[in-house]
């Protein structure tokens, strides 16, 4: 009898002991919030396919900001300076892991704020969980049209990055329409990002009477762009849009150069906004457009920030001329919001977010609150330093047709350099 009983109970007991002891181990390590520090949690792609963003995305900026804040003694909360501590977990691009991490950060570590995960799809997974746990989520890389209606019911979520209809593609289409572009070829990644940019581009082109001659989806593991480039050459569009990631955009560029496909305008991104693009393509990048945008000429504050951030991210090759400015503004806004609220109470800070303008790297910075003033926030168009960039003499110039403009839009782009 005992043999049978032990056969069942011994392994189960062992399992239970292991689980509980492991829990004790992690709960000690994770830490809980105290009145002596501000806890910020982040579920990030530390080991996954988008781990590069830990080097050149939101991560190096928030880490540098935390160091800077702590070096100055912390953030003033009701007359007492509190240091900031970051708890960062790896989700390896796995949505389920991201959800679990966010839940752990909220319910076990009791963080005061959350920094967003990497990428739009992950953001979609994190936002409802943060909202459910009533923890303010400051999104970094990612943003999508699909999120906008959801934000109305997510008062704790603030998305800072500009994206397709918010407001990049409308600005781009204004630019090409003004130059008389009549036809567009769209090549897009067969995922959330690509699909959304494709639909927005088609919609904006329709409004302006620009013909979309082809909208071709590509898989993430595509390696051969010859068929696409050859088809595009045959169709001879005025504008070619490549809505994919650096792993696809770089081979596309090489193929376009090799087959001498040189449309009047080439929009490539994300990836074109990073400093490694000019390092890779040199003079060939002249006139190529990308989503973004800001540069050192945008403002004196932007120039100072660019000079400061370049060594932080590991040099010019890791500069992000799309998101770095808005990520930094998010951090600057957060510090001022905490100080103004004078408390770490989430609802009090949320009220500041809903009602207050602060001066950040972007200048006057505030939130466009969704859901008739009770939902989450998006950054309004006026806050951005630019929407569309174009490489000109090694600078990612802002070519928007408004006050953000730092250089005229070159159309048609120059021919590829002779190889």
């Amino acid at each position, binding site marked *: 009898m005992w043999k049978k009983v032990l056969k069942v109970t011994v392994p189960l007991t062992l399992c239970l002991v292991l689980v509980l002891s492991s829990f004790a181990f992690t709960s000690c390590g994770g830490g809980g919030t105290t009145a002596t520090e501000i806890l910020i949690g982040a579920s990030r792609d530390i080991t996954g396919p988008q781990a590069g963003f830990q080097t050149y995305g939101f991560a190096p900026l928030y880490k540098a900001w935390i160091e800077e804040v702590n070096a100055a003694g912390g953030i003033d909360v009701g007359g007492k300076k509190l240091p900031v501590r970051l708890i960062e977990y790896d989700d390896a691009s796995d949505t389920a892991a991201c959800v679990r991490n966010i839940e752990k950060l909220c319910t076990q570590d009791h963080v005061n704020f959350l920094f967003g995960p990497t990428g739009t799809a992950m953001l979609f997974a994190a936002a409802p969980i943060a909202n459910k746990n009533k923890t303010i989520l400051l999104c970094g890389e990612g943003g999508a*049209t699909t999120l906008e209606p959801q934000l109305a019911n997510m008062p704790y979520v603030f998305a800072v990055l500009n994206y397709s209809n918010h407001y990049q593609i409308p600005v781009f289409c204004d630019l090409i329409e003004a130059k008389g572009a009549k036809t567009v070829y769209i090549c897009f990644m067969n995922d959330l990002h690509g699909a959304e940019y494709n639909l927005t581009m088609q919609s904006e082109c329709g409004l302006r009477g620009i013909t979309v001659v082809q909208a071709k989806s590509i898989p993430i593991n595509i390696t051969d762009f010859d068929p696409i480039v050859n088809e595009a050459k045959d169709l001879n569009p005025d504008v070619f849009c490549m809505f994919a990631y650096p792993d696809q955009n770089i081979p596309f560029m090489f193929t376009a150069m090799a087959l001498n496909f040189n449309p009047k305008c080439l929009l490539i991104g994300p990836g074109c906004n990073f400093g490694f693009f000019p390092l890779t393509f040199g003079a060939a990048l002249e006139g190529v457009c990308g989503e973004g945008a800001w540069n050192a000429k945008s403002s004196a504050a932007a120039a100072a920030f660019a000079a400061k951030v370049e060594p932080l991210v590991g040099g010019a090759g890791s500069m992000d001329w799309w998101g770095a400015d808005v990520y930094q503004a998010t951090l600057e806004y957060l510090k001022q919001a905490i100080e103004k609220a004078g408390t770490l109470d989430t609802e009090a800070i949320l009220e500041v977010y809903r009602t207050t303008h602060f001066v950040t790297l972007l200048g006057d910075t505030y939130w466009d609150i969704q859901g008739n003033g009770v939902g989450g926030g998006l950054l309004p168009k006026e806050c951005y330093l630019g929407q569309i960039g174009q490489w000109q003499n090694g600078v990612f110039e802002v070519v928007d047709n408004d006050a953000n403009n730092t250089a005229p839009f070159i159309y048609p782009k120059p021919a590829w350099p002779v190889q």
Partner: protein
Amino acid sequence: MNLSNINWKQLSKTFAAPLVILLALALMPFYGWEYGVSLFSHFLIYIILTVSWVMFSGATGYISLATAAFYGIGIYSAALLHPATGFSLPLIAVIIVSAAASFLVAFIVGAITLRLKGIYFAMFTFGLVLLLFQVINYVETSILGQRGRFVALESNETIYYYLLGIFVVTMIVTFFIKNTKYGLALRSIGENEDAAAHSGVNVTMVKVLIFAVSAALMSTVGVVMATKTIYVDASTAFNPMMSFSPALMAIFGGMANLYGPAVGAVIFSYVQEILQTGNLNNYYMLIFGSILIATILYMPQGLMGLIQNLWNRLKGAKRALTRG
């Protein structure tokens, strides 16, 4: 039924420990450990998937890598029938519909492919995951212009109790199959399929039926998980890791009895949890891989096999029990 014929002593010995554990699990949301509910939900997900996988693959030796396909069908069932906005069926109805859909798909796929053996079957089942991913991804992005779907949010406690219910059903079904002629037929197929056929076992029917039952259980996990993830798209639904993880967990825990896969799933997923959210998060894949290699090399019968061997050695048994 004559109650006097029941051996209550034997029955209590068999079910006492599981019932105590089940009671402890049922009370989990009342412990005030909020994260614990989420953590144990995570355990239950992998226990159900792993036990369901072992139900078919462990017994027959047919390595199915289709877990992600059926899990994904569950996720998309929730996305279509239990969306965040618009018409939404009750979660229990979605679970039933999803289980029926997965059963049907698995039955059809099984009828076609379970005549394949060895690596061919494994490759086909993994191909099913990739096929469903590509088809749904294409239809959504290129035809429907769909950009992911939002599923109605459920509370952590609701999710936990649904998973606990599915866990109980899974264990009962597995216990039933293991202790009936179907279990015997499956094991005989695993030992020697030709001999099983010559002995009068309807080999194809038994394989297809159990494959479909395990698929149905896998899909129910997907339904519940979708209400936790909330946002789903083809890449999250048909994540290939969901095919590999249950197989690895089963190998880690051992497949000789019901407890091995469950223990393997709990420990494996918790080690993953510790490594991913601890100070070693930069190295977790390295450590994770090392643990797995060590398990395969030094614990071919899994953790439960090792424990049983040690136990038998401690008791002075001359021959270690390696397979039950």
